């Protein structure tokens, strides 16, 4: 009974993945080569770190920066919103429906909106800056402002899902523990760091896994609002049905990064469980 599902994912997920990795070492004539990788690394430039004697291909560097900043931002926001939703207050029902709205807005629609908000011509962010007397910013013109726009758009769309997971964790903590700790004299911050966070660990790891992998795979949003290359957009840019091999190489690098990330998280989860 389970077999159809397992055969399905094996045939349509694992087999093509292996095909991609295998194909990444092949030329169009079927001979073996590492040229695809050289091509991928050579095409989109490198970021130099002279102090560390390190130079990293730009798409890889960008992917890392986006993933890390996006995760930090989303988890901070989600923690705040989840702790809000775990408390009873008037209007909570309305708020808990409202904060879910971005969940129902398609990624590409979100991208479209943020693209418009931050464009130089006809952009609302600059309108707002001018209204409060500040200088407009060329958002898509520089690396850091582009990054900010992308992680904001991504956070808007995806914070609700992180919030839901963390909220599930918070509601699983017995209120008695809070009452007890209050009796024992713990303040708001002590309660947060001594009770909420440790009890949330498992849920945070799960959310980190789900979101982290999606951040590595951020694609539609980046196509719309991010003028630089990520591993995904690079794979797409190299996509060509006639010679798919360079894009196989790019895709394989992405796959490798996702798997390394997953292994790190799993290891951490395992260690946490063992304690």
């Amino acid at each position, binding site marked *: 009974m389970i077999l159809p599902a397992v055969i399905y994912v094996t045939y349509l997920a694992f087999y093509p993945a292996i095909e991609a990795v295998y194909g990444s070492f092949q030329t169009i004539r079927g001979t073996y080569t590492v040229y695809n990788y050289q091509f991928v690394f050579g095409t989109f430039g490198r970021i130099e770190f002279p102090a560390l004697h390190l130079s990293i291909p730009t798409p890889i560097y960008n992917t890392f920066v986006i993933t890390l900043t996006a995760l930090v931002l989303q988890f901070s926001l989600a923690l705040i919103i989840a702790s809000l939703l775990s408390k009873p207050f008037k209007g909570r029902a309305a708020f808990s429906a409202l904060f879910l709205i971005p969940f129902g807005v398609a990624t590409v629609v979100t991208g479209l909106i943020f693209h418009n908000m931050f464009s130089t011509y006809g952009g609302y962010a600059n309108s707002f800056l001018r209204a409060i007397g500040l200088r407009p910013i060329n958002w898509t013109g520089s690396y850091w402002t582009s990054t900010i726009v992308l992680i904001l758009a991504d956070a808007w769309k995806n914070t609700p899902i992180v919030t839901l997971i963390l909220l599930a964790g918070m509601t699983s903590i017995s209120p008695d523990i809070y009452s007890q700790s209050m009796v024992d004299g713990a303040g708001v911050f002590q309660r947060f760091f001594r009770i909420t966070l440790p009890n949330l660990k498992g*849920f945070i790891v799960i959310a980190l896994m789900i979101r982290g992998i999606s951040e590595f795979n951020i694609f539609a949003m980046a196509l719309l609002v991010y003028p630089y290359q990520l591993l995904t957009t690079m794979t797409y840019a190299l996509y060509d049905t006639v010679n798919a091999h360079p894009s196989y190489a790019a895709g394989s690098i992405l796959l490798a990064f996702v798997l390394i990330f997953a292994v790190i998280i799993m290891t951490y989860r395992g260690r946490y469980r063992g304690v």
Partner: protein
Amino acid sequence: MVSEYNNPRTRYYIYAVAVFVSFFVLLPIYILVIISFAPSSQTIDIYYPYLIPTKLTLVNFINSFRGVGTLLEAAFFKSLETAFIVAALAILLGFHAAFGLNRLPLRVNSTLIGILFFSTMIPSITIAIPISVTFLKAGLYDTSVGLALAQELVVLPLTVFILMGTLDSIPKQLEQQSRVDGASFFQTLYLVIFPLAVPGIVSAFLLSWLMSWDEFTFAALISPVHPTLPFLIYLYASSRGGSILTGASFALLVTIPVIVLTIILSKFIKGGYLTSGITG
């Protein structure tokens, strides 16, 4: 509950944060609405668009549909068709898989769950390209069925987790009772278990549906010629000029029903569903 909520200062914080968050949640929606409904001379055609437009119009909508109404219609039905195939297939495969997984010994079961979970980690874009090449040969390229088969990969593991949680909450005795009452294994599965799992099935169906409706990567690579709505909107949004208005109008049309659906069904969309299968 003994708590600090009686403290008026804490309550101020709560409301301040709630209002702040609500503002930022609604702001992009507001901008989508004004781009769609205000004249372009107040939105995209000037350097600094009006934060609050002084005039509303339906011209953008009318122009959008006059120009590319049939294209939108085709994309709409393609998205709809694909999403329904994805959701139906997710339930068909997921229900059986979840039932089986719940009854297997723990060791086998965690291996199979591992395989399912692992499959979700494989980046869509990495496998989309080999799949598109295969589908070209198989005649599935650019079809709803082909796209649905690919999108199913994203949806299926999640569906299995949700349904495992649901099926686990149905008392085993009902299943045993049904067998004693003379029902065969499959009669038990479809006449007793399935009706009882309906709430979980509904939420799994909706989530699968929404995820397919939203899916972009496979859509871009496997069905670019006759696009689904997300890819069509992308095509408009990424080009400058008047067509962004078309993109925005389409986007609004696509978004409003889904937001309404999300809010109505928010009780079905729970974080617990995502975690139940994984934490177990």
